[in-house]
Every structure is written in structure tokens, then in C-alpha cells.
């Protein structure tokens, strides 16, 4: 069985700076992979190369065995890759329900059938289930912009899952979220992973969050992988400690 995501010898340079240097790893079905590293280690650049926001200078990215070089974000989404953003990215003037329906509608029928079909693309029931799953049921008809920051983070995650993606890339999901909401978010992500076999790649600075959520962790420093393994192994790896604390 193909890995859900396969990153093969990916490099990315900006002029003379090599932000990502010959990075390779696989992500398998139902795995939660954490991608960590100090600031400037190349995590976000790698993320953007995988998601088609930046063209890689070298190497290939395969999703479910298919090369996704040059694919636009909307094409990647149709191939089953969902994502969240570091900064909040919801549609503030649209209701929570409309946000969620939008996240699924482009996977239903053709462009023409969406024009002449049902206004909700037949997704209301599924969207309500997703909203309930992320415990936003009492906010269904509220404008997304009126939700608290943490609730918008939950909505952001719910949107990434709505189309039933094979792989979800989460960019700092814990950033700016208070402790109660953070526990909620972690618990929901774990439940999604266990109940539906969803596969995640998580970039995160919050070590406690990453260590307790992820099944495997890759550590980047200066654009290269310096350590890889389960949370316990990575936590005790002297190279990792040195990369974070300097030396």
C-alpha cells in the first residue's frame, strides 16, 4: 500500500539560502506526524512545497502515489489533501454552516450541476454532523467572524475535514488557543484520527501539544532532518536538545 504522503529528496532554495535541504519522509494511513524545529528550520517552507504554494527546487511530492508537482491548492484539495493555516482562515461574514458546506461543496458533482442543483449541494446533514463533532452545534447559524478565536480554530479544522480528505496538513493548530480550547481541539483531532482513520501532518511549536498528539515526530534544523522517531525518543535526543537550546 502506498504511503498517503511521500516526500522524496525535496529541496528549496531562495537565492543562496537553502531553506529545505534534501528532505525525505513518508506518512502512512492513520498516522499523526509532527513536524517540529526551531524558528527558521524550514518547516513552513517544506509545508508550502508539499501544498503547492511554493514550487520545490528539487525532489518530488507524491500523494497516494501520484506526483503532485505543479498542482494548484484547489486541485490538491480535490486529490484529498486538506489543510489549516497558521493564521485564522475562516469566512467571517458567512455562517458556521455555510463555512462547512463550502468546504465540501466543490467535491459534489460538476460545476454546472452545482449551479442547477440544491443550494446546499445536499450537504446540510453531513455539515451539521461535522459541526456537532467539533462541538460547535450551538453556533451553527452564527457568523463565523463572531466566534471566539478558539472556536474559529475548531471551525478551521472542521472545514479541513469536511470533504473527507486522505491527508490533513495542520499548520500550528494550537497557536493562540487557550488551554481549555486546546484540550478540546486535541481531543477532537485524536477522535477523528481514531474513528475515521484520518492521517495528519502537524507543524507546531507547542511541544506539549505535539508530544501528546503525534505518533511520530520529525525534527528539522537548518532545512535538514536531524531526528525522527516516537515522541519519547525525540524528546531525549541530544541533537534535538542542542538544536533547540543551541550549543
Amino acid at each position, binding site marked *: 500500500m502506498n504511503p498517503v504522503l511521500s516526500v522524496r529528496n525535496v529541496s528549496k532554495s531562495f537565492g543562496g539560502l537553502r531553506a529545505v535541504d534534501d528532505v525525505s519522509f513518508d506518512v502512512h494511513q492513520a498516522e499523526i506526524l509532527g513536524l517540529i524545529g526551531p524558528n527558521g528550520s524550514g518547516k513552513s517552507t517544506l509545508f508550502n512545497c508539499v501544498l503547492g504554494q511554493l514550487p520545490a527546487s528539487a525532489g518530488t511530492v507524491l500523494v497516494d502515489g501520484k506526483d503532485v508537482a505543479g498542482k494548484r491548492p484547489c486541485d490538491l484539495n480535490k486529490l484529498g489533501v486538506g489543510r489549516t493555516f497558521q493564521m485564522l482562515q475562516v*469566512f467571517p461574514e458567512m455562517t458556521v454552516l455555510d463555512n462547512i458546506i463550502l468546504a465540501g461543496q466543490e467535491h459534489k458533482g460538476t460545476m454546472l450541476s452545482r449551479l442547477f442543483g440544491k443550494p446546499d449541494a445536499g450537504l446540510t446533514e453531513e455539515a451539521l454532523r461535522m459541526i456537532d463533532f467539533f462541538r460547535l452545534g450551538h453556533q451553527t447559524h452564527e457568523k463565523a467572524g463572531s466566534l471566539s478565536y478558539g472556536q474559529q480554530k475548531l471551525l478551521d479544522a472542521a472545514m479541513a475535514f469536511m470533504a473527507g480528505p486522505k491527508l490533513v496538513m495542520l499548520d500550528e493548530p494550537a497557536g493562540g488557543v487557550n488551554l481549555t480550547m486546546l484540550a478540546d481541539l486535541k481531543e477532537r483531532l485524536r477522535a477523528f484520527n481514531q474513528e475515521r482513520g484520518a492521517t495528519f501532518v502537524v507543524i507546531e511549536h507547542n511541544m506539549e501539544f505535539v508530544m501528546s498528539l503525534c505518533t511520530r515526530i520529525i525534527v528539522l534544523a537548518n532545512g535538514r532532518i536531524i531526528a525522527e522517531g516516537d515522541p519519547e525518543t525525540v524528546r531525549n535526543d541530544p541533537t534535538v536538545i542542542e538544536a533547540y537550546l543551541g550549543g
Partner: protein
Amino acid sequence: MSTRTSFSLVAGLAILILLPFTQSNYGVFVLSSWMVYSIAAMGLNLTLGYAGQVSLAQASFMGIGAYTTALMTMAGIPWPLAMLAAMVLCFVIGLLLGYPALRVQHHFLAFVTLAFNALVVLVLRNEEWLTGGTYGVVGIPRPEILGLPTQKPLAFYFFVLALFMLTAAALYGIIRSPWGRAFRALRENPIRANSLGVDIRKTTLLAFAIGSACGGLAGGLVAQLTQFIDPNSFGLTISLKVLLMVIVGGAGFFFGPILGALLIVLAPEFLRFTEGYYLMLYAALVIVLMVFCPSGLLGLVERARTALKLRQNPNATTWEAGR
């Protein structure tokens, strides 16, 4: 659709059917003019209000639609074909004009569309062999429907009313459909929309094309309404006027451009008694409205209604209060 909305729509339609019988020929002309401009403004509302793409070129599409309809009907081509051709042509040119919007946004896009409007006016003025240049086109026939002429103001009013209703229904269908949701997503957060599978390129181009096709239809009706067109009828001033209709009524509200067009077309009539001061008064009113309610008149109504409901029921959500 709620019973209250259905009732309001039926009442509104009844008023539109009965109102012209109480008016002079000039009054019927003004009402027809309002509906024609409403069609253009509804199209721009889709492009600007829903999809968030700034366009200062709606008058140029009205011009292309007007000249296409006028020249084709005067050449003996049946009016339905001529008007359809006008809309299709504007749809295609709108698609092309949408391409710059894939690269530039906001005021840069406004300048691109503004330049396009200027270009269309220059073509209409300079290509005399086709457009009659500054002399324009005179004697444009009004349509004949199943053998019934619409030469008289009242008959033509009902022809315009029918097309106005059809356009409104079509646009309402589009806005309520997943396309409408994608347009709003494009306006609010194109990067996120793209990551959720919305094809930003197609959505942007469609927003321009559909809005432009409405401009083409409105232009065809302007030609038949006034029976005379010249390049100045479709200059930048008219584009700004249509933009004002959308903004004053409430961009992104379905009935916003219809209300805005009503105000912009009727205000000069009501302010006529002020003689030389009317333009100044009109400008001052627009400034006051924009300062105190940038979301337009319908935005003002929505704000007031929500505030009132929240005062009555402080525990209501803003959605419940807004209903």
C-alpha cells in the same frame, strides 16, 4: 422562503404592475429606466458585492450590449436573437476582462476596468462606419412580442418588467446556489477558498462574465428605451452611477442595487424643485450615507433590526436577532 418574504414579493410585484397606470408617460419612462439600471446594478452587485471584484466598467458592457442590440435589430435580425447576442458577447468580453483580476486586485483592478471603459467609449466614438461615431444611432426599434408592439411607453414598461423579473430570479438562483457561496468565499478569503477546492480562476472569471452579461442586457434595453444611443451614454460617469447604485443600496444584499437604482434614478426627480442646488444636495446626501453607513441603506436596515431584536431579547444570538 418565509411567508413574510413571499408576501412582500407578491405585494412588490402588484405595485410594479399597478404603478405605471397612475403615471404620465414621463413617469413610466422613469420607472422603466429604474428597472433597466437595476438590471445593470444587479449584475455589478454579483461581481463586486458578492465576489468582491472591483469593476468600473459596467457602462462599457451596457454600451456593447446597446450597440449590438441596436445594430442587429436595425439590420433586420429578430430582437430576441439580437439581445441574446448582446449578452453572449458581453459574457465573453467579461471573461476576458476577468483575466487581469487574476493578477491584480482592489484599486489596481479598478484602474484596469476604468481603462477598459475608456477604450470602449473611444472605439464607439472612432469607428464611425459601424457606430455612427459621436452622432450615435437613431431610431432603434422597440420589440414586437407575438405580433404585439411595445412602441408605447406602457407596453414597453411591461416588457422591461418581465426581463427585470427574469434577471432577478436568475441572479437569485445563482446567489443561493453553491456558486453564490463560492463567490462570497472569493470575496472574503480567496486563499482559504482555494485550499478548499474552489477554483479561484474560474470563479473570478464567471463573476465578471455574469455581471457583464447583465450589463449587456441592460444596455440592449437602454437602446430600446431611449431609441437613441451615443458613446457618451456609456462613459465613465455612467459606470460610476451604476457603482453608486450598488454601494448606496448595499453591496452584497440582493435587493441593494434595486433600492440603490431607485434612489439614484428618482432622487434627481424629487430634488428638481431645488433647481441649481440639486446636484450639491445629492452629493451631500451620498457623502452622509457613506460616512454613517458604508454598507448601504440595506446594511443600515439590517443593523437597526438586529440592534432592536437584541434589545428585546439580549440572550438571542446575532443570527436569531437578524432574522
